Structure formats: C-alpha cells, structure tokens
C-alpha cells in the first residue's frame, strides 16, 4: 500500500492548485487541465528531461525547470506559458525537424506523429535552421518491426519502455552528441537480437515514425499508450 502523502499547494499560471508532494509540476498541471507540451515524457515511464519542451518558469529560480522532472513544493509559482517559453519551444521543434530526415508526407506516422502535431500546435510553419540531412540507415531485420533512424528524435521512450516495463533491455543508445543512435543489444541487427521478446512496446511508445510495425504504409501507424499507466497501476507503484 502506498503510504499517506501530503498535499502541497502551488500556483500555476495564476491558478491556485494542489498536488501530492511527490507529484511533478507536469502531473499537477495536467491534473488541473493545464497543457504543457511534452515529447520525451510518457505517463508510466520515468522522466528524463531530454526534449526540454516542458520547460517552465518558476518564480525565484534563476533557471528554467523541466516540468516533467521537477517535484512540486509548497508555495511554488509556476508559469507554463510566456512569450519566451513559446519562442524556445518553437526553436526546439525546428531543431528536431532539421536534425534528421523528416519527410512527413511519406512517413508511417503521418497524422499520428507527436512531433508533427506539436509543430502545428506551436505554430511552426517552416524551419529556419538549415536541415542537416544526415545519412542514417533503417533496420528492417526484425520480423515484425522496423526502426528508421531517419525519423528518430532520441527521446529514449522506447529504451525506457524496453527496460522499465518489458525488462528486456534490448534497446540502448550509443555514441554521443549528434551521432547518438538507438541500438539493439550491442549494436547488432534487431532481427538477431537474443533479448528482444517482440512485445512491441517500443512501437507503441515511439512518439514519431521511427519505430513502426512492419507492413504498414504512410499514415497507417497507430499507437497504443494506455497500457503503461495501467501496468504501473497494477503494480501498485507510481513510476
């Protein structure tokens, strides 16, 4: 049984809200219907604070804080939307789109992609940074799934689902900086992975068109996330 948790009160965007002491700013905000954009966060997985879209201003703090990784405190005053935050968020979307080869028109995730949806939501109608056009491959060696590095935004949701939920630890990350790449096991082809259980959780948590089910075409990719909070609830523990 979960132990008794105390309640903290705070202000988000001028509204008085209350949350459990172990909640993050993001959780408290969502519970009160306040929208903060996110990409690397997914309910049911640990938070890593990688995409920086959920950055918020907290009064008295010199730095912006990622809402998904910051636990609330009593009397905290949070601003989730400001001209500056909006500007940063748009720039981040642009950096993502310029980083790899995002060609939405022919992408399996078209119209179901969270990056694409956020671009629309945040008003990104073009990318001001030069596209980097890297040369990345596609791993189609697995019987059921495909990993297209050209669409990957390195959010590590697949890696966390694989490790934290499935416990297979098949997926990982290699190299550094712009050369980061999701790998299976010790950088073997996915189809040869001795650890992958073919559970498909990575397919469902990938926010974009990087991991998809084989045989699906443009627009056909579908995602099912609800199993995550369900699983964590059934385990009786909060992530």
């Amino acid at each position: 049984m979960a132990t008794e948790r105390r309640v903290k009160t705070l202000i988000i965007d001028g509204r008085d809200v209350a949350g459990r002491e172990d909640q993050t700013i993001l959780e408290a905000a969502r519970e009160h219907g306040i929208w903060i954009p996110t990409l690397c966060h997914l309910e049911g997985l640990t938070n890593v604070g990688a995409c920086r879209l959920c950055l918020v201003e907290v009064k008295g703090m010199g730095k912006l804080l990622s809402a998904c990784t910051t636990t609330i405190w009593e009397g905290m005053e949070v601003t989730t939307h400001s001209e500056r935050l909006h500007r940063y968020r748009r720039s981040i979307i642009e950096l993502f789109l310029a980083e790899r080869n995002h060609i939405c028109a022919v992408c399996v995730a078209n119209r179901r992609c969270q990056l694409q949806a956020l671009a629309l939501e945040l008003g990104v109608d073009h990318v001001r940074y030069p596209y980097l056009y890297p040369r990345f491959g596609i791993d189609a060696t697995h019987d059921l799934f495909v990993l297209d590095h050209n669409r990957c935004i390195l959010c590590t949701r697949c890696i966390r689902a694989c490790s934290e939920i499935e416990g297979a630890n098949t997926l990982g990350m290699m190299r550094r900086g712009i050369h980061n790449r999701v790998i299976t096991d010790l950088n073997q082809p996915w189809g040869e992975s001795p650890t992958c259980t073919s559970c498909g959780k990575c397919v469902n948590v990938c926010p974009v068109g990087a991991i998809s089910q084989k045989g699906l075409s443009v627009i056909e990719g579908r995602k099912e996330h609800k199993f995550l909070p369900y699983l964590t609830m059934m385990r009786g523990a909060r992530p």
Partner: protein
Amino acid sequence: MTRDELKKIGEAEQERIRKYRHQVHVCMASGCHALRSDKVRTGLQAEAKKQGREGEVLVKRVGCLGLCSRGPLVLEDQSRIHTGVAPEEAGTLLRSLGEPEAAGGEPLPLDHPFFKGQRKIVMEHSGAIDPERIEEYIAVGGYEQMLAAIIDMAPEAVIDQVTRSGLRGRGGAGYPTGLKWSTVAKAGGGDKYVICNADEGDPGAFMDRSVMESTPHQLIEGMIIAGYAVGANHGVIYVRAEYPLAIARLEKAIGQAEKMGLLGRNIGATRFSFDLQLRYGAGAFVTGEETALIASVEGRRGTPRSRPPYPAERGLWGRPTLINNVETLANVVPILKNGGDWYAGIGAEKSRGTKVFALVGRVNNVGLIEVPLGITLREIIEGPGGGIPGGRKFKAVQTGGPSGGCIPEASLDLPVDYESLVQAGSIMGSGGMIVMDETSCMVDVAKYFMQFCMSESCGKCIPCRVGTVQMHHLLEKMTTGSATGRDLEMLEELCDLARHASLCGLGQSAPNPVLSTLRYFRDEYLAHIDEKRCPAGVCTMGAGG
C-alpha cells in the same frame, strides 16, 4: 596508527633527509616526465655514485615545479632551478651544486618573476616531496590534520573551519564548500559518499593532474576529512583514464595509506572507517558534470540528469553524496592546519584563498601557477607569465575553457575572483588561462570552443545536441566569408536558447565563448560578415563560398 606512531615515522624521515648536504629534486610529473626527466634522474643517481657522493647528495623524485614548458626541471637545494636539463649534463650539474656559478641546463634563481608572484597553499609540497613515498608526506605533517580531526574534533567543528575559510569549489561553479558539506552532513542517515571529481576535461587544463601526480596524499587526507565531516564512509576518486601517471600514484598512495591504517577500518583507533576506490573516466568531457559522473560510476551511460535533486540529496546509488573537485579537496588540509580564519585572510572579499591556473598561450612562461585570488589578470600575465613574447600586442585572455569567455585588454586590471569574471562575461572555471595576442582571431577562437562543445555534447537534450551543431555551422559560415547579418541574429538566438534550455552546464555554457567575444569583439564578427575580411588574418575567407 596513533598520532605518536605517525610522529615517529615523520621524525625518522626528517632524520634520513637531514643527513644529506645537497638535495636535488627532479620533477617527475607529466610535463617533465614527457621530456624524459626519468633519464635525468637516473643519470643524476648514476653520476652521484660515480663521484662517490651518494651519502652526500640526495637525488629525489618530486612533483610539479610549475615551469612545465621548460622541463626537465631540477631544483637544487631550494635555491635555484635548472631548466631544460639533459641527462648528459648530470655530471656537471652535480659538480656545480652550491657553487656560485651553476651548471647543467639553464639555471633560474627562485626569485625569478615566475616564482615570485605566487603563493603556494595547494602546491606547497609540490616539488618538495616524493609523491610516491608516504613517509615524506608524513614528514611534512601529513595525516596529522586528519587524525586530529577524527580524534579531537566534532564533524560540525570541521565543517565550521571549512565554512569560515570561505573556500569555494574549484571545479568551476564556485559553490561554497562549507555550505555543501553541511548540506550533505544534514542529509538523512545511512550510507553516504564522498566523490572526488578528477575528470579534468577542459582542453589545456592540468591543475588537478598535477596535484594528483605531485601530492596524492594531500588529496586523500582531504577526502578522509571530508568523509568524517559529512558522515560518509566511502570515497570514490573519479579520474580520467588519460592520466596514467596520476592513477599509478593514487593507487600507490591508497595502498600505502591503507597499509599504515590511515585509510580503511577504524582509522586512528576511532570508530570512523573510510575506504577509497578509484574509478576511471573514459575520455568524455561531460562526465565531469556531477550527475553524469555519478551515472558513470554506477556503470551507466555517462549522461547528466536534471537537478534538483542535487547529489547532496540523491547522489551515488541514490544516497547523499559530497562531490568536490581535486583542488577543492587539496585545500582542506592546509585550512585545518592553519585555521579557517587564516585562509579567509588570503585572497579577495568573496573569493578566498589561492587558485591554481594553467597559464598557457602567448606568454613567455607557460606553466602551472598558484596565486592569491583577487590578483589582477595583468599581474598574472606580466608577473609569473613574463609578458607576451616577440613584442606582439596582447589581445585577450580566455578563462574557464569551453564554458568561459575572452576578456579584452581594457579589462586587464580586473581582479580574478568568481564574481568579477562572471561580470566580465567569463567564468573562473577550473583554472585554464589562455593568453592570446593579435595573431588570434576571436571568431575562430569561438568556433574552436563551439567545435569542442559540439563533439563533447552527450546528445541527451536537443538544445545542446543540435544547437551546438547549428551554432558551429553559423560560425563556420562566418570564418569562410559566406555569412550574412541574418546569420548573426540566428547565432545570438541559438546562444540564448542553448544557455537557457539545455539540461546541463555543458549546453548552458557552450554559448559563453561566442557571447563574450561578441561582447568585446563585435567589430571582428562584422568584418567577417560585412567585409568578408578576417582582421587577424587567420580565416581563409572565401574558402567555404
């Protein structure tokens, strides 16, 4: 090991050394070592034997003597230093010992400006004792403070001395050390850890390496004291694998201290136990960031995580952890020895004590210096630095490495303290100090550091991972003459983004070299952009079309 036993060891060692008429100290830290000072040492030893003076001349391995660019260095009887000594000169050098006319290498008196402007606290015993013999460290009072602390002092009293000293972290950010210690001390019971950050990744920096190679026991003693003060029984030194000599000496020192019962269970017959492990970094700059370092020690990928929670609250294995830099910890013993108030009397208002700098670039004397904080940049460059060679004009000094900035001539009288450097658009950093003259192009310098941050970015967060690539691209355009005014706007915008949106200090400070050069040398950027001209003549404009 009791205090009496310790005293006896020290006295026996002093006795041993006192027998010699001459002491010849051969620097065997990395700088001189690379110039084959080991050959000089064996040459001197063989020669002493040949001349039948083995009982009279002590040829000793010591740590860094500071003037690294002029090695191999040999210190004669605390009176003069022979620079650039060749092994073949061993004979003449030995024959000239104590003579008014020195021979062997190029001799420098110890009142040479390079040494005169310095004040040695961290490096007090550097170059004076053999780093590989614990007895020599004990002979200069080593481990006395540690035993005194754990036997006579309450942990709070130890922290109080450190707090009073005003010591601030030497790893870069300058966080008050006493405050950090008391936070960890107050953190809940159970296992706690002390980590020494010896990852030293700034290009051109070698302060920490020198401390580890020269006086490893001073660092170890500082760590034990820190452990006692904060209630930690386990210590980890995270040292980069590129420092084999430092690692070898630390390993040896840990073994020696354990053997003497100065490290391990029930130190000094008290109930306090402290063990120490070495962990090796695999050559990434970002693992110097504390949370990435901890991840690496735990065997995970060395990437940072967002703070809070800070390591003081949740660090190694989720336990409260004190993480301090090598130089910070090396200051602890002298502070306890002379008192926090003594230390607070040295240096500047909010930046107490001394700081070790790796002085490199266009100065006559390149090497490692230790100076009181509050000294001006001009005093450093013209004093120990010996001015700019070749009659060229000074242009800027870069401090803080890839996280720092360039300070122009107009600010040369700036006192070197944490706040002044930040106000000037740079940071103290870990102690790198690169002097540049008129032959350096500031846009090119900014590009160099951006290139560094770009290749060292861990890639976890997007503003740094892709932001640095985009910024580097814009700087590349500027240095090849294909940039427009719009590119400058974009650069400034990306600097703002990386600074405020990146997850860790690497990305947050990556724009600093650009921002500080833009602040003082905007003309130079504009010349590159508007006139397609590089005033320093460094960039080959038009190459990138």
